């Protein structure tokens, strides 16, 4: 029998069925992939295993013994550890305080940090990781923080480790390091469950794969039996998918957006954008690539007039817009697909109709003397929904009731309907399923071919490589390099994203 057996697990939240009779069995010492789109139920299943939720039905067997996991403490006591997608570290505390938090097996009352630190350092040595127990967590890089999360679980002697989309925040090189660590762990007898929606990762490091779709198990296969990525993709999506973006050579025109020596310091006087210059021509996509939090947000906010740059200038179609208000910027035919759909792009309590009118309500046709012409607006919005494939029960349902993909299509529809000269798209496909992602990416290409200048920010290297005509890499607020798409390789970009210039292989001085 398998090491872990989850049998006929069902879970619903209110009327939403998240898991429907799901069974999963994992062999000891293997890396088992849990593949599925967002909302397929992967995280829910694992959160049940880790005691964050309780299943409505079903039983869990670990090592042939039925176990009842009522909270995370029970899970940990059974040797089950989990590294969440959003790290569960306490940033202002030290590494060792984070490790020892809630762990009273060394001593019950006092912390005995020295003793714990010694054990932690042994663990670090064993897995060849270099993290000082006395460092403050917020000073660690994202990659280090993730390794710390794994160490935190290993410190508690787990035998089964769940990793929820661990590569989402890593550079390609960090991903490699992670993968070799995972191999080492399974060699030592650990069992790993690897949640992902990236097909290549399943093919590369996993032994077995369970595919979930809409809360059900679609199939369970050994990776050695999988023939192609496409086969895996169609299992995940439920229909054949075209993974290739069709795109012609760019026909570029005039410079639309020009950013010169832009600098931005935040309120703590930390330089977030450091001397960035870039230009986007009509008919091309400039991809801004980098690990999240390296100045992308601030750069975009400066361009959109949401932040005041500390230095430098921004012009659109030759007109200086530095320090202008957001409305003035938008009036230059600029469209913006913001990074955070729910926080910036839409108001989820408003109806679809209202959300679609948010951008253009001041236009003449939308109303006169402050009175909105809802009849006309609704007709327009129905057209947008049809054209952009937004599936909604009607114009008058709250936008928050739409699925993530449809919300994003609604936002994209609203922004593209204005036929922008400059389109700023930030993480346009974040959190979307394969179908919606491909749809939105193809729309961006169409906009480019129509002649729009597009500034695309994404942390997904694949997306950058597929869509961009030119690529700029940001690291700690600086532009590491700008290159033609043809000149870019994954490895090269990965090094730049980590702040290493491949030519002289030295790390650029840290200015923060």
């Amino acid at each position, binding site marked *: 029998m398998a090491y872990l057996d989850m049998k006929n697990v069902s879970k619903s939240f209110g009327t939403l069925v998240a898991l429907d009779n799901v069974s999963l069995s994992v062999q000891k010492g293997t890396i088992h992939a849990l593949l599925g789109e967002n909302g397929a139920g992967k995280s829910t299943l694992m959160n049940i295993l880790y005691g964050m939720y309780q299943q409505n039905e079903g039983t869990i067997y670990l090592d042939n013994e039925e176990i009842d996991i009522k909270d995370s*403490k029970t899970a940990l006591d059974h040797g089950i550890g989990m590294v969440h997608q959003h790290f*569960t570290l306490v940033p202002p505390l030290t590494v060792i305080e984070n490790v020892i938090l*809630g*762990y009273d097996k060394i001593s019950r009352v006092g912390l005995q940090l020295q003793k714990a630190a010694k054990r932690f350092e042994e663990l670090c040595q064993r897995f060849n990781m270099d993290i000082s127990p006395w460092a403050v967590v917020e000073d660690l890089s994202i990659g280090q923080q993730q390794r710390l999360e794994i160490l935190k679980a290993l410190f508690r002697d787990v035998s089964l480790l769940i990793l929820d989309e661990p590569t989402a925040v890593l550079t390609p090189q960090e991903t490699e390091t992670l993968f070799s660590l995972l191999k080492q762990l399974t060699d030592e007898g650990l069992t790993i469950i690897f949640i992902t929606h990236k097909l290549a990762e399943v093919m590369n490091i996993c032994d077995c794969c369970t595919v979930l779709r809409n809360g059900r198990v679609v199939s369970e296969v050994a990776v050695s039996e999988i023939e192609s990525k496409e086969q895996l993709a169609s299992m995940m999506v439920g229909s054949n998918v075209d993974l290739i973006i069709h795109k012609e050579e760019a026909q570029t025109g005039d410079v639309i957006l020009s950013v010169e020596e832009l600098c931005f310091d935040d309120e703590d006087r930390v330089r977030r954008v450091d001397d960035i210059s870039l230009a986007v021509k009509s008919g091309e996509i400039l991809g801004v690539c980098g690990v999240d939090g390296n100045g992308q947000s601030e750069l975009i906010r400066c361009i959109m007039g949401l932040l005041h740059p500390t230095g430098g200038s921004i012009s659109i179609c030759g007109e200086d817009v530095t320090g202008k208000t957001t409305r003035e910027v938008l009036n230059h035919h600029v469209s913006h697909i913001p990074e955070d759909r729910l926080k910036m792009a839409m108001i989820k309590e408003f109806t679809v109709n209202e959300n679609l009118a948010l951008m253009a309500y001041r236009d003449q046709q939308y109303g006169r003397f402050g009175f909105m012409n809802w009849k006309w607006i609704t007709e327009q919005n129905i057209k947008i929904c049809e054209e952009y494939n937004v599936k909604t029960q009607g114009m008058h349902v709250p936008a928050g009731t739409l699925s993530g993909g449809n919300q994003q299509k609604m936002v994209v529809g609203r922004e593209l309907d204005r036929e922008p000269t400059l389109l700023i798209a930030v993480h346009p496909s974040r959190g979307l399923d394969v179908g919606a992602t491909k749809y939105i990416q193809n729309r961006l290409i169409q906009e480019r071919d129509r002649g729009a200048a597009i500034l695309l920010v994404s942390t997904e290297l694949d997306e950058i490589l597929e869509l961009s005509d030119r690529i700029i890499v940001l690291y700690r607020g600086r532009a590491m390099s700008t290159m033609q798409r043809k000149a870019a390789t994954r490895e090269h970009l990965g090094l730049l994203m980590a702040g290493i210039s491949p030519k002289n292989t030295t790390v650029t001085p840290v200015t923060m």
Partner: protein
Amino acid sequence: MIDTITSFLASDIRTATPLLIAGLGILFSSRAGIVNVGTEGFMLVGALAGVVGSWLTNSSLLGSLFAMGVTVLLAAIFAFFVVYLRADQTVVGVAINTFALGATTTLNRILFGMNTSPPLINVFDVVPIPGLSKIPIIGDALFSQPLLTYLAFLSVPIAWFVMYKTHIGLKVRAVGENPRACDTLGISVTKVRTGAILFSGALAGLGGVFISMGQLSFFTEDMVSGRGYMVLAAVVFGRNNPVGVMLATLIFGAGDALMYQIQAAMSGVPYQFSMMLPYLITLIAVCAFKSKTRPPAATGIPYVKE
């Protein structure tokens, strides 16, 4: 001159004591991510309950314990609203203050009458420490205080130890910063926060008791008069650590002490001006030394277990 210094120091320490007692409690709830605006109310209720308890039992110790019991109950209500019902902490805190002012005023009038002289009750006696209290200048100031004052200052290193060297302290700090992280490690955010609130309620109550029974020997309406807010300021100004809180309360106490000195020395100045001093010093201190430390990240945010 020497007498002036001695009496200044003595009165500084004496006025700092209730702030420090309450401050050490509020420190823990603040670190756990709770904004306890109701401190003022807790102290006021403590001040009256202490007097009532002492009046009934003829013992200042039993009076203090009674007062702490009452404020822990009040804190339980506060915890029920903000931790379990996830109500807004500031709103509930203000409600507690309003309730405390009304309830203590009414009860005081019912129990002790309006225009009668206050009853004689057992209060905190000054306990000079043999030997030490004879040291010139500081002896009389530092070592001729009520027992509770010594305890308060001795608690500072204990609070520091608990905060930084024990599991309890680590949990409290972690819950205030990232409750979800605690949840994933099997730590009950609800329990830690409730515990911190009850503890802060008990100490705020005791701080109130010291005002009515250590500084005075009776209860007057609204006698806490803003000290609860000074406690909150002291915790912020003291950078959320016990030693800082102690220093902050001593600075704020110095304002009070200075007020008495000025009132005594310059009879020409309207007393309203000198009465402004403690609050003015609090205000200036908090503004001038804008601390670089930030409050716990999850401050004021109710935790929703998914």
